[in-house]
């Protein structure tokens, strides 16, 4: 049976990990390669690197980082953040990234999804969607959630699928950073209306939240950052607990 995936997300700036990471035995907490290897050893199923570099030079460093991760890590990884051209995607895939994720650039020019999936295959095109529930309606937000749009989450998600995305990474702005659990109602609706995998993001605070997002939210994968980085939820224990709750995971 296809298992549910656990995905740590690492923020990268100028080729270095930025968010505080607090692992024991880590020689260099800012080294994405070392962190990635540790997560792979702990049983992470995939990794996501989010490039928050603001400059071109920073982006170039990230490309080098991707190459080093690909050299040393034996699980799949996705790179996202500031990607808006076919050339950029080509460079990332050539450097060894398995998938790329696009967000604002897809909203601004939806044809980009078609172009990327046609050229590189749907399997490597993840579309990330940040949305916020306002007066009961889920509205897509841009630029890391800072710019609201009038676009409905579910309509956009459907369009993203039809244009050839292989997967959707949905972050609820209402839940992100709260540690109060994932947006399971919206996730379940996405999962039931679409026929591509959905990654849940935003709100992970404890093990029960993961159980809920797989059972109630019907998510195919769950992504989190701080609960993993600070060792609050060790991945191996999380996966054992999920298994105890009859959720299929890779142990």
């Amino acid at each position, binding site marked *: 049976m296809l*298992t549910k*995936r656990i995905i740590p997300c690492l923020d990268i700036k100028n080729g270095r990990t930025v968010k505080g990471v607090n692992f024991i035995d880590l020689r260099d907490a800012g080294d994405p390669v070392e962190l990635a290897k540790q997560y792979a050893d702990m049983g992470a199923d995939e990794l996501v690197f989010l490039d928050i570099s603001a400059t071109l030079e920073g982006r170039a460093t990230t490309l080098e980082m991707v190459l080093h991760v*690909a050299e040393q890590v034996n699980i799949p990884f996705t790179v996202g953040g500031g990607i808006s051209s076919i050339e950029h995607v080509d460079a990332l895939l050539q450097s060894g990234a398995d998938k790329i994720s696009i967000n604002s650039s897809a909203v601004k020019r939806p044809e980009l999804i078609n172009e990327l999936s046609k050229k590189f295959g749907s399997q*490597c095109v993840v579309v990330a969607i940040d949305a916020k529930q306002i007066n009961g309606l889920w509205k897509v937000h841009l630029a890391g959630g800072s710019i609201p749009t009038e676009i409905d989450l579910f309509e956009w998600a459907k369009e993203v699928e039809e244009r050839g995305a292989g997967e959707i990474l949905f972050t609820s702005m209402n839940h992100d950073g709260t540690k109060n659990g994932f947006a399971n109602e919206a996730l379940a609706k996405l999962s039931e209306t679409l026929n591509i995998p959905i990654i849940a993001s935003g709100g992970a605070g404890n093990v029960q939240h993961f159980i809920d997002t797989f059972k109630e939210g019907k998510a195919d994968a769950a992504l989190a950052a701080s609960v993993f980085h600070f060792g609050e939820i060790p991945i191996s224990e999380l996966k054992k607990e999920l298994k105890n709750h009859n959720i299929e995971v890779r142990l």
Partner: protein
Amino acid sequence: MKLVIINYGAGNIKSIQFAFNRLGIEAVLSNNAKEILNADKIIFPGVGEASTAMKKLKESGLDELIPNLKQPVLGICLGMQLLCNSTEEGNTKGLGIFNTVVKRFSNDVKVPQMGWNVIKNLKSDLFSGIKENEYMYLVHSYYAEYCEETIATTDYGLNYASALQHKNFYGVQFHPEKSSLAGEKILKNFLNL
């Protein structure tokens, strides 16, 4: 040991090269007929769309070279699918090594299948030391139908061939280069065939 990864412009092959590097083996990327014929072991990779990939093989004459190889050949993902008789993707005729056809998953399951699933009914030296129900990483929308040459199966809405073997030709639907330690073991086994 001379290992060649056939480079015909289909998808990300760096990952495969890196995986062999981690095993201490230098793999050469090549589309040169002479270099491929002189290799001890050959990897036939592939990511992307089937008809486009087959077109690229034909342009470089590899469609005639590959079926005549005598060394162990390992097709990975789309590489494995292109070694079958045909695929529904782009209505493409395959190289006809494996006597089976490739079809699209039905919409009863999410397509693509993306993530870790188990391989079972293992029967080949390729899987020596690999336990039944080992997890492998898969990303695909099309599957090879079960046939006599099946050496591993996986369930995803139905039971399909996740690995095939015919004489010196091996094919795996999963990505051993991305399947952690068990995947590395399979690559090692291939080198030892």
